C-alpha cells in the first residue's frame, strides 16, 4: 500500500514538474477561467437579477469548464511520442498510475480554482471571508469527485477519435450530482443558512466521491489493459 502511494507520488511529481516547466496549459486555463467569469457577468440583466443570485451557479460552471480543460491534458500529454507505453512498461501498478494522474490533476485544477475564487469574489462582489473555511471544504469535496471521474474518463477519451469532444460528452452527465450538490451548498453558505439545511447535500457529495474513487481504482487496470 505504501509502495503504491510512493509510486503515485512519483508519477504526480513528474506531471507537476512538466507542467511547471512549460506552464502553457496552466496559463491558458487561467486566462480561460478569467474570461468565462467575465463573460458570465454579461449573461445576466443587472437591473433584474442580483449577482449573488446567480453567483453559486457561475462559480461551479466555471470550475467545471476549467476542470474539463485540465483533464483533457492529463493523458493527451502521454500520447505524444507514445509516452504512455513507457508508463505502462514501468514497474508501477496501474492503481499507482491512476492515483498519480489523479493527484497531478487535482493540483492543476486546485491551482486554477485557487486563482479563480478571489477573482470570482472580486467580479461578483461576494464576501468570501466569513464562509471561506466551509466553502473550501465543499470545493475540495466536489473537485475530488469530478476529477476522480474525469481522470478515468480522460484515459478512455484520449484513445478515441475526436478526443477533445468526447470527454465533455461522456463526462457532463456524470457532473450532475456533484455540481448540483456543490451549487446548493454554496448558495446556502452565501445565504448564511444553518448546517442542517446542507447536510443531505454533503452526504450525497461524500457518497459520490467514495463510489467514484473506489470504482475508478477498481476498473482502471482493466481499462488500460492491452
Amino acid at each position, binding site marked *: 500500500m505504501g509502495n503504491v502511494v510512493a509510486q503515485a507520488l512519483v508519477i504526480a511529481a513528474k506531471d507537476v514538474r512538466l507542467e511547471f516547466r512549460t506552464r502553457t496549459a496552466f496559463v491558458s486555463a487561467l486566462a480561460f477561467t478569467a474570461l468565462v467569469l467575465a463573460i458570465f457577468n454579461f449573461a445576466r440583466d443587472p437591473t433584474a437579477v442580483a449577482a449573488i443570485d446567480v453567483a453559486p451557479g457561475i462559480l461551479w460552471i466555471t470550475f467545471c469548464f476549467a476542470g474539463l480543460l485540465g483533464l483533457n491534458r492529463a493523458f493527451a500529454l502521454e500520447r505524444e511520442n507514445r509516452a504512455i507505453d513507457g508508463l505502462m512498461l514501468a514497474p508501477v501498478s496501474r492503481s499507482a498510475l491512476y492515483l498519480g494522474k489523479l493527484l497531478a490533476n487535482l493540483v492543476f485544477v486546485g491551482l486554477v480554482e485557487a486563482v479563480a475564487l478571489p477573482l470570482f469574489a472580486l467580479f461578483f462582489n461576494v464576501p468570501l471571508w466569513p464562509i471561506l473555511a466551509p466553502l473550501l471544504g465543499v470545493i475540495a469535496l466536489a473537485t475530488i469527485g469530478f476529477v476522480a471521474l474525469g481522470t478515468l*474518463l480522460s484515459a478512455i477519451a484520449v484513445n478515441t477519435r475526436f478526443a477533445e469532444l468526447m470527454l465533455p*460528452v461522456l463526462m457532463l452527465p456524470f457532473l450532475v450530482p456533484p455540481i448540483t450538490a456543490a451549487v446548493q451548498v454554496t448558495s446556502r453558505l452565501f445565504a448564511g443558512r444553518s448546517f442542517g439545511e446542507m447536510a443531505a447535500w454533503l452526504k450525497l457529495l461524500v457518497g459520490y466521491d467514495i463510489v467514484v474513487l473506489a470504482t475508478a481504482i477498481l476498473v482502471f487496470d482493466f481499462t488500460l489493459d492491452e
Partner: protein
Amino acid sequence: MTDLSRAERARARSTVVVLLGLVLIAAACVRALAFTPLEVSQGAAQKIFYVHVPSAWVAFLAYLLVGGCSILYFFMRDPRLDRLAASAAEVGTVFITGVLLTGPIWAKPIWGVWWTWDVRLTSTLFLWFVFFGYLVLRSAVPEPGQRARFSAVLGILGALLVPFIHVSVYLFRTVHPAPVVLNVRGPQLPGTMLLTLLLSLGAFTVFFAGLLWRRYAEAALEDARGAEGDDGAR
C-alpha cells in the same frame, strides 16, 4: 453448423418476434383507444399512459441489461456480453426517446408545460445522455477489444450514476404522478385500465426482445463474417 449460418438463422427468427411485437402493440393500442374507459379528470390525454409507461419499463430493462452485461464483462470478458450490452443500449435509446417524446405530449395539457425538472424526467433525460455517450464512444473506438473494455467501464459508471441523479433531483421536489400500479395500497386504477396497461407492457416487452435479438444477431453476423474473412485471407 458454422457461426455464420447460425447467425443468419437467428436473424430470420428474430424478425418473426419483432413482427409479433408490432402486431401485439397494435392490438394494445386498439384496446386502449376503443375498449378502455376515459379517465375522469384527464380525459383523452391519459391514453398516452398505455404507450409511455411500457416504453419507460422497456427503457429500464435496457438500462439493467447494459449495466449488468458491463459488470459481467468486467469479470468474464466474453465478447457476447459486450454484444448484448451494445444491442440493449441501441434499442434502449430508441425507447427512451419514445418516453421523452410521449411525456411532454401528456404534460402540456395536464401540467401546462412541456417540460419540468422533476426527478423522473431528469433521470430519464440523463439516462438518454449516458446511452447516447455510450453509443458515440462505441462508434469512436475502432479496435473491438478496446471498444468492449471502454464500453464496459462506461456502462458500469452509467449504472452507478442514475441512482445518484435520482437522489440529487429528489432533494428538489417532485410533481410526477406517483406509481399507480406498484402502489403500497395495491393497484390504484380500475381493472379494465390495468388489463390494457398489462397487455401493452407485454406487447412492448415482446417488441423489445425481438429488436434486441435482431440487433444481437446482426452484430453476431458481422463478427462471423469478419472471422470468416480472416480465415480466407490466411
